[in-house]
């Protein structure tokens, strides 16, 4: 086994963080880690990141909005909610949607446990309101939180 040495790339300092999970925030944006007006030019610019709750929220959003096959390197990733697009908005479909979300989150998001999934049918607007009650047991303090989103013919969006 040969080794390639790249001396120009120095090892970065081990970061000390108060958070358990750190994810990239999309869309990409810069943040300023110092704010010393005298040293404005030397100010370190870094990418904005999401921590803990926000990071997990990203993950769940990605799971729900990714259709299997879209991630080339992991084609099984995601849920195919598009298959319900032309089906009648009904309790049965809502149950199926709930099951799909349950299976996918259990499979791809090990950081949370699902306490409850509630898929409500909104026949008037031809959409579903999905409420996820999740427990973040991997954080220092176990806490539960709710994510509420809407699934309609224009896609899935979180409401909170």
């Amino acid at each position, binding site marked *: 086994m040969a*080794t390639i040495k790249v001396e120009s790339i120095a090892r970065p300092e081990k970061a000390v963080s108060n958070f358990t999970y*750190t994810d990239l925030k999309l869309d990409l944006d810069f943040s300023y880690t110092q704010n010393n007006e005298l040293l404005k030019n030397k100010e370190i610019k870094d990418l904005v990141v999401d921590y803990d709750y926000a990071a997990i929220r990203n993950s769940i959003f990605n799971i729900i909005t990714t259709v299997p096959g879209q991630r080339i390197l992991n084609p099984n990733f995601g849920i195919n909610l598009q298959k319900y697009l032309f089906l009648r908005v009904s309790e049965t479909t809502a149950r199926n949607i709930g099951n799909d979300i349950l299976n996918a989150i259990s499979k791809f998001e090990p950081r949370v446990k699902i306490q409850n999934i509630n898929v409500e049918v909104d026949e008037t607007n031809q959409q579903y309101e999905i409420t996820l009650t999740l427990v973040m047991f991997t954080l220092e303090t176990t806490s539960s939180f709710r994510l509420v989103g809407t699934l309609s013919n224009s896609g899935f969006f979180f409401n909170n």
Partner: protein
Amino acid sequence: MATEFNNYELPTDGYVAFDATSLKSLINTRLNANNIFTDQNFEGSNISSVIDIIAYAYHVLIFYLNRTSSESTFTTAELYENINKIVKLISYNPVGFQTSILSFLANATDSLLPGIYTIPRYSYFTLNGVNYSFNQDVTFAKTISGAEALLDLQENNLLYQGSYVQYPTYTATGEPFEVLTVTVVDSNGVNDIIDHFNIDVYVKDNSVPTPKWAKWTPTQSLYLERSNSTVYEIRLNENLRYEIKFGNNVTGKKLNENDEVAVYYLKSNGSSGEVGPGVLNGNKLFFYNTPQFTQIKNDTTPSNLSLITVLQASTLEFSNIDASTKFVDVESTESIKNNAINTFRSQYRLITSNDFINYVSKNYSNIISSVQAVNNWDYISGHLKYYFDLGVDKPNLQSRVLFNQVKFSDSCNFNNVYIYAVPKLEKLTSLTTRASYLNSAQKQLLLNDLQQVKLTTAEIIINDPVYVAIDIGILFPGEKLTPAVSDNTFIEIVREVTSKRNPESLKEQIKNIFANYFSTSKDNLGGIMSLTDITNQILALEGVKVINTVRTENGVKITIPGISLLIYNPVYPETDIQITTQDSKLPYYKFPFLNNVLDFANKITVITPSIQTLQQEF
């Protein structure tokens, strides 16, 4: 610590061995080495998605890097464009399309007075909508006042499929090594099919007071030429267009500024231009004519030549008894790889047997399917001894040998180089079992060409192969071996009991394996007849379990496992005949053909064992 971090444990060929998955894993490892990001380990995270995109993009780039790397070397290049450019480094010129060639018979009626006549170059016949043209001025003599067969004309000349086309006149810029690229495309942007060996270049030197057209000649390499040689190098480039390159007054004459260059090329109809026997019969000869060509003809035809007139041409009768040769596509990548090495080794001079073989097979692949070359010693100890052993007291008088010896050899034999060539086209006549020989005109064409590059002292004789028939045969004990043993001999195919294959289609497939293996278009002259190879091909067919050769005569049955091949010379079936059940190599002068190809499927029987038989077996 820093050093440790900078150690990327990659294989030595890592940059090409990387793929998306390994890159993703590497990025994750590096991100895990510090705490800045953590979510790369969770598939759902944003950063994981971004890593996927980067890794995949890198993967695609690596794929193209690999493709590019492998396409840049001689051994690994597979694309025509690339191998064409690579072999240019060793001055190899790939061969382009080769049009069909037609041999003909010519007669002059008594209306043509005795004399010497010349048919002007590019004259043509129109046969069923396709043209066949002469590629040079053709001179013949009419010696008697009555009707006469024009042997000189028919034995030394051939017709080439296609019509000559005049390329727009090019005005030279006068630069050293000036290149003219012949670009002729149809309305769809597809290149016209130009015959590789029939592109003529004429140059009119406008720097002299009375400019005249002169025909320049092609050369293998300008670097072998003198400063005043009126030559050009022609090369089929990677875009399948011909590049005509002129000299620089050091190696090959340079074009002067405002010199005019006229190019005439033979535009072929491809495989749709092939014709069968008799198509030429009674067709009228047309003369090629354009204002520029008339001027060129006047300038380049020697004054002592008497060009035939339209009226005189109408007294000539042309016919053909052979079909045209097959149209040949551009040289393939594989072929370029083989021929480039051999040509480089020979440096365009024919010294060793292999040089002759390579040269002929490269340049005459439209006529010849298989070729061998031997010196006089090998010829005497091989081909002539073969006839001696057969009991032919004077092998030199054997008709084919004598024919070639008289037509193409001088009286001194020690310096002879015998080239055995098998034509691509099969000729089956009722008189002889197999008569696939090059005709005199084709042999003369080869000879004329080889004269330019052969060793000065070598005398070339184009010889005909000895055809041997291949059949299936088993000999009963005490029986005399004759071709008749094949009459009741069959190939027995034992089918898998579960096979659902139609026995008739299986027979047809097996017949095709034999027919293909012993096809005239195969390079089998002096080749190995591998029964192992044929057996493996048959066993690879779905449903075939066992192959036997079986002969039943008067109720007695003999079965031999595998294939028992009968090989005999149909001209000497009593003396040159043998049976073999193993791989064998033919001598350099023998070429195998499958006897009675059309009926061969009837020599195959397919049996399926019953379930009961299987139960007994187990």
